[in-house]
């Protein structure tokens, strides 16, 4: 039971981060029906940009995070304006290839600049472990979980109760109708990319706190797909629940199966095994 609790806590924390990253994906898909395979690269860029501002330049954490969000928002803006806008009306294959190409481009550039070296953030979260039941885990998990939950709640509030959230939901419903009541559909698309990039970047920062920043961060972008398939491509609550389920499943499966069968890799297998069926 203690062991299970240990896996479950790690799983739920990762799940909250998955939810956060998947939220950005769902946001773009909801407003513009574009599948963003580059969401994982926002995570990667977020991790390294955070590393640059906080560890390299030694800025205070809050300033570093603000600059990180600003940089990522700019990245999202530029990507939408330059590469996604010309593809409006193209078949889905072109859009998939475009975002795949973007993800290669960004990934390659980041690794080229940083050399994919492992970096860590300075210790700013207390290290004393927390005990729940018999399980012991580091405080970092609790913090990251808390921040992710707050961000998810904030985004939900944004969609449900603010003017721009309303614009976005209207655009998602129907482009023509939204346009006819005076909503700027194009700027709504841009806004979706800006927010998605910023959210992905924060996700990368939080993941970097837990496991250090490395080239592996972009793989979390691939995990987003099982999450959104499980939760539904257009559903924000779905992304949240899907993230939790996938995180939990992944950690429990890895925890129990890896010692039995050896070799590792059950983690991603269990995730994709479920991801295979869009109807569950």
């Amino acid at each position, binding site marked *: 039971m203690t062991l299970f609790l240990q896996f479950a806590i790690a799983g739920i924390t990762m799940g909250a981060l998955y939810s956060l990253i998947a939220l950005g994906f769902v946001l773009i898909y909801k407003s513009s029906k574009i599948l963003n395979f580059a969401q994982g690269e926002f995570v990667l860029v977020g991790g390294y940009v955070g590393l640059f501002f906080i560890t390299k330049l030694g800025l205070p954490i809050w300033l570093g995070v603000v600059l990180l969000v600003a940089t990522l928002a700019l990245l999202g803006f530029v990507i939408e304006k330059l590469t996604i806008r010309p593809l409006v009306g193209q078949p889905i294959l072109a859009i998939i*290839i475009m975002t795949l*190409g973007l993800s290669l*481009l960004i990934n390659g550039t980041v690794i*080229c600049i940083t050399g994919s070296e492992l970096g860590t953030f300075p210790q700013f979260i207390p290290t004393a472990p927390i005990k729940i039941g018999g399980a012991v885990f580091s405080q970092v998990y609790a913090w990251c979980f808390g921040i992710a939950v707050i961000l998810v709640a904030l985004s939900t509030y944004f969609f449900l109760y603010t003017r721009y959230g309303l614009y976005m939901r209207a655009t998602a419903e129907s482009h023509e109708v939204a346009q006819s009541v005076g909503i700027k559909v194009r700027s709504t698309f841009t806004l979706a990319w800006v927010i998605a990039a910023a959210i992905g970047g924060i996700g990368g920062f939080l993941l970097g706190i837990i496991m250090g920043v490395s080239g592996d961060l972009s793989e979390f972008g691939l995990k987003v*797909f099982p999450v959104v398939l499980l939760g539904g491509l257009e559903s924000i609550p779905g992304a949240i629940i899907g993230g939790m389920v996938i995180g939990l499943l992944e950690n429990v499966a890895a925890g129990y199966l890896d010692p039995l069968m050896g070799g590792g890799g059950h983690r*991603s297998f269990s995730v994709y*095994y479920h991801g295979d069926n*869009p109807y569950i």
Partner: protein
Amino acid sequence: MELPCGVSKSTYAQDMAVVHTRTQWGLLGILLAFLCVLPFFLNSLWLGIVIHTSIVLIAVLGLHILTGLCGQISLGQAAFLGVGAYASTLLCAKLNFPLPISIIGAAIFSGCFGIIFGLPALRVKGFYLAMSTLAAQFIIIYLFIHVRFAGGSQGIFVPIPQFLESKINLYFIIMGTAVLATAFAKNISRTKAGRIFVAIRDNDLAAEVIGIRLSYYKLLAFFICSLYAGIAGALYSLYIGHINYEHFSLMDSIWYLGMLVVGGLGSTSGAVFGVIFISLLSKGTSLLASQMPSLGPQVASTIGIIVFGLILVLFLIFEPRGLSHRWEIFKKFYRIWPFSY
């Protein structure tokens, strides 16, 4: 099809011919002769690049039939190459089959694997199909690592017959297969099945309404695609001599898809152009970067991917119809040059 002035066609067979005029036959002959003498003028580095490019060409032609003609997205082509490579090696090494039979067996086995993973295509399309083929990529790689006789993460050594030790013999076998595969792919697009594939791509509902058995033809497309991948994989195993799961990564699947798009979706010449263009470009930039050590090792290792991503993005923005469309424009211009009025 643009033809020179004065060429007239009086029968259906003439109209459907791939090669129309004497000049075109001549050019085709020159091309084949060029391919025959090519290996004797290359050093071993470039010979390896040419061999690898022709293997990739076979894989991309398979993908061309599935994605370009039939419109089904596949993000798992590299994994099917892996199935072919492992199957051929295991048939050859463990069951002592002769090499040609094990290659054919591997191709058919890979094709059947493709049918299994093509089954979701009967229910889903677009993004969901991309996801289920992505899942195929991960599950097949998982099998390579965990199935006992596949050698785990160490991989297995490929028994290579004596006469293939020489790279030139290997070149002739692989290039010959690639040429045959190109001719076959070109002809598939002109058969009943090929036209049905295009109908499914353009509008699957309408295709079903006019009496096409969607499930049969979608699975046929998956079968042919994986068959090509199986052949390519078996040849690849002969080329590298030792296979493990890392040779068949998701990244390779993306490269294949990207080559198809850069060349131009839906045309055989597009697949050929895309493979040659992207292979030469990425190899060229990597070589160039490794010539300049002042840039640092990570530049040399990532420049290929950066250039590839950039090319993909630029092509999708400025020329979504790919190189084959540019080639058509070029031909049209040249046909009436220099008196274009």
